[in-house]
């Protein structure tokens, strides 16, 4: 084989291998979804949505998850938006901002089980037991860095001219940020919030020793609190096949929700490049 033919065949082989790798990842995703549908759909009866775990459903877990994630969002998102705004606007170029940005990146990738341990030490031990509130705090800490990151990224896409124009009209800084910059970056910030919500909704590890789980329907955040991921985790490990198939129904629900949120944010709200 001459040199050119050899180089061509190397090129061809590498292209084939690379395409195969991409296909393998897509197959993995499809396979996961297929397994979820195959095992989760048969168990998806109306009981799932109307009965608590103690009666063979998942109602309390679904309600618990929604409530905890919503509260976590109420705490985490505003702080995240403010911190992200600081990084993109007031703190641009400062050393303090560089430090915050760096630490936020670390928090973004930090193992979520450590957030669970931290909240256990900070909330569960002093208050004397597992509680919905501790779960909310843990999820808020998961949400915050995601919102900080996307807020900063989206705000830095807002053209400087918009801000100049607003300042030229005599607007104070807070007004420029609130009614011009945030407004311009609104879709991007919402995207970040939805993505953080999707991430928090699927987290199990930080809830293991904070909210813990509860087989009954409850709205009392002061005691052990149910959530979908924790319920799946408990039911999946029981030897009873009926319980395991309820776990799969829950797994299907949560994955469908999380993926739907991701697709919506990426397709509908994605910034046009």
């Amino acid at each position: 084989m001459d040199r050119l033919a050899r180089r061509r065949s190397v090129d061809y082989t590498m292209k084939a291998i690379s395409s195969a790798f991409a296909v393998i990842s897509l197959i993995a995703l499809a396979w996961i979804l297929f397994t979820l549908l195959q095992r989760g759909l048969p168990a998806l009866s109306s009981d799932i949505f109307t009965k608590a775990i103690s009666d063979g459903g998942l109602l309390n877990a679904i309600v618990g998850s929604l409530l905890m994630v919503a509260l976590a969002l109420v705490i985490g998102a505003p702080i995240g938006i403010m911190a992200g705004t600081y990084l993109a606007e007031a703190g641009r170029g400062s050393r303090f901002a560089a430090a915050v940005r760096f630490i936020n990146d670390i928090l973004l990738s930090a193992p979520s089980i450590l957030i669970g341990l931290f909240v256990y030490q900070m909330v569960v031990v002093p208050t004397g037991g597992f509680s919905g509130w501790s779960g909310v705090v843990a999820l808020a800490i998961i949400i915050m860095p995601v919102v900080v990151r996307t807020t900063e990224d989206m705000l830095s896409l807002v053209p400087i001219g918009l801000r100049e124009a607003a300042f030229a009209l005599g607007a104070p800084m807070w007004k420029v940020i609130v009614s011009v910059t945030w407004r311009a970056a609104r879709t991007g910030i919402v995207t970040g919030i939805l993505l953080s919500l999707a991430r928090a909704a699927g987290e199990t590890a930080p809830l293991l020793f904070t909210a813990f789980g509860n087989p009954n329907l409850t709205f009392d955040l002061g005691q052990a609190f149910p959530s979908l991921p924790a319920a799946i985790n408990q039911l999946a490990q029981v030897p009873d096949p009926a319980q395991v198939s309820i776990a799969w129904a829950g797994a299907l629900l949560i994955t469908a929700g999380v993926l739907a949120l991701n697709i919506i944010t990426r397709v509908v709200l994605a910034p046009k490049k």
Partner: protein
Amino acid sequence: MDRGAVASEVARGAPSPGARHVPGAGLDPIFKAALYGCSGLILILLASIVVLLFYGGWPALSHFGPSFYWSTVWNPVTENFGAGVMIYGTLFTGILALIIAMPMSFGIAFFLTEIAPVSLRRPIGMAIQLLAAVPSIIFGMWGVVVVVPLMAAYVEPPLIALFSHIPVLTYLFKGPASGLGMLTAGIILAFMVIPFITAMFVEIIEAVPTMLKESAYGVGCTTYEVFRNVSVPYGRTALVGATMLGFGRALGETMAVTYVIGNANRISASLFASGSTIASTIANEFPDAPAGSLRNQSLLELGFVLFVISFIVLAISRLLVRTGVK
């Protein structure tokens, strides 16, 4: 000052030149303080995580001494605890995941930037990104019902038959083919971190100046040669950083690993041996360890170790990515 400098001064909150009185400016200090405070909270948060984990684990460390870090005993009955097995398992599965994920991510990045038809790049890239959105626990459950039986039936027996008679490799490829264990955990972790590494690889490769690539094509390079000899060297630092980020993520994954690693408390060089990681041990044992017990403190110390390892890996990763991509 040029226009850009004025603009950035203004963007930072200085009154625009020529403005004498800005109505409503009185609220600015409050607003700025709020922005500042929320950012400070991020720093305080990380500092409190370090302090609380250290404080929580300190009694265990002072009880067992520094040998806690390499002792391989973990016995709740005799109250003797060491982190050796878990640190080994964490690094072993993390490195395995990296060995699988890095070439695959390179391939996928090559595919997404150079090979795939332009109209397919976004949908395929997005589908691969969706893998990252699948919750960890789902990977674990899928691993148990799909990957573990596959490994036990079709992957591990032939590998054992093939390699167990070769001198050095026999240590890597020995043991019962149960499907659970280090290799399965590594594979699942690899699929969990591939989307992160790939996304960063694609971003880095796309930042390579077109002119560089065009000149390489101009002297007759093939697509792969351009990728291998121009794009990859150009983004080398950032690519290493992105790989480290994947490693950092793999180290702390909890639920997926807990389901498939077998949760055995021993060290074995075999890829098929059951083991445990720091995260899986914490997830499994924390609920059984009452607050204030030596076991509880040992688990918190494990958490502190995991934090230190991931902090170092993630910090290096961020620094490399940042210096690598301008």
